């Protein structure tokens, strides 16, 4: 991969992840759906409950509603030709289901397709409530 190819791929991946962030912030799954591969999977624990399937995620996002204060950071972006891994940390989750000020760690795996980089899996860990804004 040449330098300019690397930047193109990186920016393509960041764009896809941004769709997820936009959908999360506005509480609209329609904004993030194009970021996901049709066969994408979704896994993680929400409390004691094992959540699975992208439909669960999309429903959750819509029911949760806006989370205007989320602060996302891309912790790592690893690109291996046609596949990639992104670790995203999102602090300041809020909403009908999220509660307030919670933090989520996400691991996205992506596949490069003819229509751009698509999320093929999202695995998440929902951190137990922490007082992120303690004075």
């Amino acid at each position, binding site marked *: 991969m040449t330098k300019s190819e690397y930047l193109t791929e990186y920016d393509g991946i960041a764009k896809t992840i941004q769709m997820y962030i936009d959908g999360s912030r506005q509480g609209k799954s329609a904004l993030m759906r194009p970021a996901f*591969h049709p*066969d994408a*999977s979704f*896994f*993680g*624990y929400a409390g004691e409950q*094992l959540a*699975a399937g992208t439909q669960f995620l999309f429903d959750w996002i819509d029911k949760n509603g806006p989370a205007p204060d989320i602060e996302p950071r891309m912790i790592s972006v*690893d690109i*291996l*030709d*046609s*596949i990639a*891994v992104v*670790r995203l940390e999102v602090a300041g989750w809020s909403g009908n289901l999220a509660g307030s000020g919670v933090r989520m*760690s996400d*691991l996205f*795996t992506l*596949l490069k*397709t003819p229509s751009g980089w698509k999320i*093929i*899996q999202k*695995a*998440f*860990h929902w*951190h137990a409530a922490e007082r992120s804004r303690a004075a």
Partner: protein
Amino acid sequence: MAERNTPRKTLESWKQIAAYLDRSERTVRRWEASEGLPVHRREHEKQDTVFAYSHEIEAWSRSRTKCPGITASDLAETVSTAKPPANGYLLEHDAITRTMHCYIAGARAGDSELMRPAFQPTATISGYCQGVEYSGSVQHVFHWIDQNGPAPNISPRFARIEIIETIAVVHLEVQHWSGKLAGADTRASDVFTLLKCDGEWKITHKLFHWHAS
């Protein structure tokens, strides 16, 4: 230091290692993969050969721990004097590498039965194989592994193991793939996502990239 003067007995093949432990070759291969049976390899141009030291095998037997995928008959002979690492993080790390070694054992032997315990039943895969996208059930992998047959020379390396409480990502680089489907001496990059499910780490997704040879 009497031990140091004891000549070290070397077992020079899977057959000899299996005979020493009075088990089948298949069982001892699985033990290497999933339970850390100390087996060494000599690299040769064509095919690596294995060997083991009897004193290491003895030490392993004494400290043997149980692992996912172990069968009831295996459990019966388990000596449970396991000494797990004191550190919680290392405990998780080791559990993850044990799961990954089930995958590696299956890949090396060309036997999907060895790797099935490593996967969640609903696990999925994706990636390209000769330009064709494969996305779907992990059954694709099991089928492929069985069709491919043994790949005795694979050299797997953990490029990354990242743990976030209940989830983990493992980047495995595997060189020297061979077999009926893999061709000769190819390289694969695999990214596995794992979930800690009922106290056991299981692979939920395998993402792969075959490098052009």
